[in-house]
C-alpha cells in the first residue's frame, strides 16, 4: 500500500513528458494549459487507456493496468456520451451492474442511488439522457466517474461550458468527494474556473509541466497597478503597459519604491492599487515565458 493515491514517475510517450507528480488522498490538483497542451492525453494515460512509452503510473501503489487499480480510478471524459434513449437512473444502473462483485456487500441498486446522491441528480433520475441540459450531463458524468467508490477521479473539463451556478454546485460536489479522501485531478482550458477548487495547480505546455505549486503560493504574487493621466510611449524599466496605465509585479520591491520609479520617469500617477495575480495571469505568463 502506498501513501499516495496516484503517482507518475518519468512518464513519457504520446507527445507527453517526461512527467512526474503525485497526488495524496483528498487532494484536488488542477491541470491547466491551452488546447493541445496534452491535458486530455495525460488523463487517458493515467486512466490506463494509453500505454506510456516509459515511466510508471501507480494507483495506491498498484500499476494502473492492474484490474484492481483500474477499479479505483474514475474517469470523466471531456466528450462523455451516454445512451440517449435511457433515463439517468437506467444509465447509472447499467454502470453499477458493471461494478458488480460477488463479495461486494452493496448491490448495484445501492451504488446507483449513491451516485445519484453524489451528483445531485435525484430530481432528474427519471429523465431521459437526450432531455438533459448541459449542467445535468456534467453531473451525470461526475456520477458515473465516482460510482463504485472510486478513490482517484480524473475529470476532464468537468467545469467548462457551465453557468456560474452549475459550476458552483459541481465545485461543491467535487470538494465534498475530496473531503472523503478521493484524490481528484481535474483539467481546464480556463484556469479561472479552478481558482476556487484546486489546492495545487500544474501548468502543462506541449506535454510538459512547466510550472507547478500550491494555489496559495501561486496566487501570493502581488501586482502594483498604476493608473496614469496619459499613456506613456514606453513603460519604465520593469513595468508593462496596460489599458489604463502601467503595472509591475511586486516581487522583491516595495510599493513605495515602484511608485518612486514612476516619479523619476516623470509619470504623473492618478491612482494606484495592489492586487494579487489571478491564476489566469500566472498561467498566461508561464505560457509566454516557456
Amino acid at each position, binding site marked *: 500500500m502506498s501513501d499516495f493515491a496516484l503517482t507518475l514517475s518519468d512518464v513519457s510517450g504520446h507527445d507527453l513528458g517526461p512527467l512526474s507528480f503525485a497526488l495524496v488522498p483528498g487532494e484536488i490538483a488542477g491541470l491547466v494549459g491551452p488546447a493541445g497542451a496534452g491535458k486530455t492525453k495525460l488523463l487517458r494515460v493515467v486512466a490506463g487507456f494509453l500505454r506510456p512509452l516509459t515511466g510508471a503510473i501507480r494507483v495506491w501503489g498498484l500499476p494502473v493496468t492492474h484490474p484492481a487499480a483500474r477499479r479505483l480510478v*474514475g474517469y470523466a471524459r471531456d466528450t462523455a456520451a*451516454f445512451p440517449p434513449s435511457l433515463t439517468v437512473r437506467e444509465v447509472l444502473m447499467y454502470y453499477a*451492474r458493471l461494478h458488480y462483485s460477488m463479495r461486494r456487500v452493496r448491490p448495484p441498486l445501492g451504488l446507483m442511488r449513491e451516485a445519484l446522491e453524489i451528483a445531485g441528480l435525484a430530481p432528474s433520475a427519471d429523465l431521459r439522457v437526450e432531455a438533459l441540459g448541459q449542467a445535468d450531463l456534467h453531473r451525470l458524468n461526475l456520477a458515473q466517474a465516482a460510482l463504485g467508490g472510486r478513490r482517484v477521479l480524473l475529470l476532464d473539463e468537468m467545469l467548462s461550458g457551465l453557468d456560474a451556478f452549475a459550476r458552483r454546485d459541481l465545485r461543491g460536489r467535487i470538494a465534498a468527494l475530496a473531503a472523503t479522501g478521493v484524490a481528484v485531478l481535474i483539467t481546464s482550458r480556463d484556469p479561472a474556473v479552478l481558482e476556487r477548487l484546486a489546492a495545487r495547480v500544474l501548468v502543462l505546455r506541449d506535454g510538459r509541466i512547466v510550472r507547478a505549486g500550491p494555489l496559495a503560493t501561486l496566487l501570493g504574487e502581488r501586482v502594483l497597478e498604476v493608473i496614469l493621466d496619459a499613456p506613456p510611449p514606453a513603460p519604465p524599466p520593469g513595468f508593462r503597459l496596460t489599458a489604463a496605465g502601467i503595472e509591475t509585479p511586486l516581487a522583491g520591491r516595495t510599493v513605495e519604491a515602484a511608485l518612486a520609479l514612476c516619479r523619476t520617469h516623470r509619470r504623473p500617477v492618478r491612482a494606484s492599487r495592489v492586487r494579487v495575480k489571478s491564476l489566469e495571469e500566472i498561467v498566461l505568463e508561464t505560457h509566454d515565458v516557456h
Partner: protein
Amino acid sequence: MIAAAIWYQSPPFISYRAGMRFLHCVHAEFLLVLPRLTRTRLGLSLLALGGTLVWLSVHGLDPLTAALQAGALGAIIGAAELVGRERDRAALATALTHPTTALGVATGRWLAVVLPLAPLTILCAAATGGGHTGAITAGLAAAAAVGGCALFVVLFFGNGGALALFLFMAVAGTVAPERLVDFARPGVMRLTAASALELGPALWHYRDIARGDVAAALHALAWAGLGVLFASATIARRGVHG
C-alpha cells in the same frame, strides 16, 4: 477499506470469478435492450418486419426464407438501433471507463441483438406454416451470424453500413453464388459479389441448416464469433481514441 477493495478485486489468475465477472458484464449490456424495445423504433421495426414477412409468405414467399429473413434482417435492425447512432457509439467509450472489457461489451450487445429475434423468428415461422424446428433453427443461426457481422459493420460504418447490409441481405442474400455467376456478366464485380456470398453470412448458406447441415451451422457460428471479435476490437479502439 482500500486494502480490502484491492484484495477483493484482484483475482490472481483467470478464475471462476473472472468468468462470472465477464458474464455479469454481458448481462448488464444485454439488459440495455429491454427499455429500447418499447422506447425506440426497435420494437415497432421488428413487428413491422415480422408482419411484412408473414404477408409476403401469404403471397408466395417460401416459409423457410421468411424465417431466415426474420433472423437476418431483424439482426441488422437490432444492431442499427443499439449502436447505429453516433451518441450510442460514443457512449461505448464511457462504458469502458468502468470494470468491463470490450469483449464483454461486444458479446452483451450481440446477445441484445440476437435474443429478441428468437420469439420473432418462431412467430414468423409458425405464422407462415414453416414452424418446424429446422426452419426455426436456421432462422436463429442466420440471426446469430448476421447479428455478429451487423454489429461490426454498424460500429465501424454507422447506419449507412447497416442500410447497405440490409439491402444486400434482403436482395442478394438468398441467391446462391452459382446462380449469381450464371446471371451476371464476367468480371471483377461478379467475382467479388460471388465471393462475398460464398464466404460472407449469406442466407442461401443457412437454408441447409434446416436440413441438418453441420458445415452450414459451423459457418454461422464462425461468423457470429468473428463478428463479436471484430466488434470488440472496434469498441476497444473507441475506448483509446474516445
